[in-house]
């Protein structure tokens, strides 16, 4: 509830573009909003829509930094708009662009859903275990080492917001590049003892230039991940694993 900057007038410079409207061209539009204590970009954008521009498009669902809907480029950095307080910016100017690398629906709204579904199908983001399918649900569950459960959870925290994909230089150059979101999924399932896929199975998925060998390790992903996933260590780990699998 930082109220340090009460009373400022904020200038929002927002990319407006409706690809479905014949003749419309991308352009920047500026809106002025009076800053209120505790104001987030979620609050500001809704106010703009209600009072200034009924056509303005953006996506929020949880408004609590949990669901990954609201990724956008905020003053140059991909981040979750719902949990970004306007007070965080010393200058009262906030530029908002839609996340690049995803299909644009309109203004700040992009289609992450079609992307993540395709990513899930490519990585096959589910437990692969033929025997598991026969489990009797009435019986005691299979045991798991408590530390392993914690370790899986750490990697399972990805909210598929797409910030890492938007910040990735390789992705910009290679459209087919799997990207950090996909790598984090691979890392998550590879560490899970319930998933019986072997290194050579994983090699099929990421053992190439569209996979982990294409990564330039510039860590745009880790720097921009709102959930602080351990990209650097995990990508390095996957690369070692794949080099091993290639031998």
């Amino acid at each position: 509830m930082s109220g340090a900057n009460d009373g400022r007038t904020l200038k929002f410079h927002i990319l407006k573009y409706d690809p479905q409207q014949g003749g419309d061209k991308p352009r920047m539009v500026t809106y002025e909003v009076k800053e209120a204590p505790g104001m987030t970009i979620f609050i500001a954008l809704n106010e703009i829509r209600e009072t200034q521009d009924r056509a303005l498009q953006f996506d929020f669902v949880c408004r609590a930094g949990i669901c990954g809907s609201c990724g956008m480029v905020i003053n140059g950095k991909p981040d979750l708009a719902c949990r970004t307080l306007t007070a965080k910016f010393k200058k009262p100017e906030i530029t908002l662009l839609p996340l690049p690398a995803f299909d644009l629906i309109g203004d700040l709204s992009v289609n992450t859903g079609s992307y993540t579904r395709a990513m899930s199908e490519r990585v096959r983001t589910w437990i692969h275990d033929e025997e598991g399918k026969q489990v009797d649900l009435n019986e005691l569950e299979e045991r798991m080492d408590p530390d392993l459960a914690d370790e899986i959870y750490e990697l399972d925290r990805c909210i598929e917001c797409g910030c890492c994909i938007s910040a990735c230089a390789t992705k910009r150059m290679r459209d087919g590049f799997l990207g950090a979101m996909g790598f984090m999924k691979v890392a998550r399932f590879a560490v899970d003892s319930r998933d019986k896929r072997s290194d050579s199975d994983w090699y099929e998925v990421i053992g190439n230039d569209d996979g982990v060998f294409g990564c330039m390790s510039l860590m745009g992903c880790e720097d921009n991940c709102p959930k602080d996933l351990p990209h650097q260590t995990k990508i390095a780990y996957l690369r070692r694993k794949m080099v091993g699998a290639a031998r």
Partner: protein
Amino acid sequence: MKTVFADSLIIGGGLAGLRTAIATRTRGLDTIVLSLIPAKRSHSAAAQGGMQGSLAATIKGEGDNENVHFADTVKGSDWGCDQQVARMFANTAPKAVRELATWGVPWTRVRRGPRQVVINAERVTITEKDDNHGLISARDFGGTRKWRTCYTADGTGHTMLYAVDNKAIEFGIAVHERKEAIALIHDGSTCYGAVVRDLITGELIAYVARATTIATGGYGRLYAISTNSVISEGMGTAIALETGVASLGNMEAVQFHPTAIVPVGILTTEGCRGDGGLLKDKDGYRFMPDYEPGKKELASRDVVSRRMTEHMRKGKGVASPYGDHLWLDITLLGKEHIEKNLREVKEICEYFLGIDPVKEYIPVRPTQHYSMGGIRTKPTGESRQLSGLFAAGEVSCWDMHGFNRLGGNSVAETIVAGMIVGEYVADYCERSSVDIPTSVVRAFVMREEAAITEIIGRSGEDPYELKREMQQIMMEKVGIFRMGSDLQEAVDGLRGLLLRSRNITVRNKARHSNPELVEAIRVPKMIKLALTVACGALARTESRGAHAREDYPERNDRDWLNRTLSWWKDEKDDLPVLEYENLDVMSMEMPPGTRGYGKANMIAHPDTEKRVKQIEEIKESMPNADRFEVQRAIMPYDLPEKYQGKNERVGVGFE
């Protein structure tokens, strides 16, 4: 007219919808899921604290089983629930937790040996058994006699939703995203699917199916401040209401969660208190033991929320520009515990409040949180009036929660309902013919098309303004404590808004992706729902669970042991029609009694004593029977065969 066909149409891609879809897909049926947003972003992802299932693997869960879970659920509901449904649920919940384990949920596991926990503001050491090492653990939650809430740190809903959605992807289930069902297609006795608006192109599409399941979640956003996601606007409930045929149940049963942050209303999980967090007032004084010496901070939610409100009314709240609040103190849990098990809470405090909960108190107050009411169904999940229409999850009133839901019972319900209702949906699809009258379908699509054209064409009322006024009325007059006079004002005010909403329009005239048009379609529906809540609350002259009437403080089993049903019989009506469905004491397994927390202030039902005696006699007549046989003799219930099995627990086997 674009038409899409399916056997099983599921409206909603949260936990309940996806699990139902998996059930019908597994039975070989062509299954399509509709969702406003990518499925993994559904509100279910926001559940933090956990999922109840009586696995009894932690030492503090020892002795837990279906009977205890059932009893807690019935008490929690203030005897308003359908006890057969609560039984179906309690028996299936352990299987649901275990199934999710095989699907990838990284449940927090039991670790052998001693560990420190905080119970009643004191650090105590509990020692987990060697034998239980690696089994699924559980934490304490409000209103439960055992530690029964299975969890993954405080990201339980997220890990569950990801596991279930990934499973749906494995099965190749189509999820049609950014689609909104805006009307059900029916002929007065059978439902044939839905009219769906594509939120990108604006196109109307007829989704025609043998069975339609609504799994659209709650209606929390009828209130100005809610812990719910911004899309929890009750649209599935509303389109069922607008059939004029299907009834809603107990719409006035709305839960307020004790600890949402001020001012924005984002939740801090009940796990904070379950793990030992305390509520404190402006003097830093822990007040709950004064009101609830037994369960203290961990009485059921309706009770804690009311006690907090009472305490603030005594002038003990902390003043702020956004009104009074109280403090949630989790500092005593320590940095390590908070960073590991309450990490989302920590992030929320940092980002939205700029505080560190390891060192500072969190400003909280009771906030709208859960919708117990919803589409009234049979225990199979099917509407009692429209065949082929089913409901599962928070949207439904089958009715597991009565007038108050226990923490951790909702995500458990979504999965369990998906498992059970999914089987009944599949049975229905297998029985039903494919004979779907295209003229009926066409008429519904044309009606919706015309309504949208009218909204765009006319000049009139502003959707945002109507919505704001509705949300304000609900906040001020249909809240935690309710009064006849306020409720009457609410009904009158909402009725005025309803009349105005018939003239709703938009400034932005685009037919395709147009957020204002989305509002203009939804707001009149939301106002109708708000009226079912307000009218139900006004008519119910007693207090039960979350419905607390200051002018009728007692729970009145004699006159009100029933379920409110509401209909919108005619489009031109400006109020819902209410009827009541009695709960039959003589067939209850647990006749009405006291909850053991909250004020015991009741008027008894005339049958209660008789039933208590009868149950005693049944028990005495079978001295050698086990608990399952006794249960069956007292209150038999149905379940799909695959979920009837007994549940194994460590140390006690299948007993």
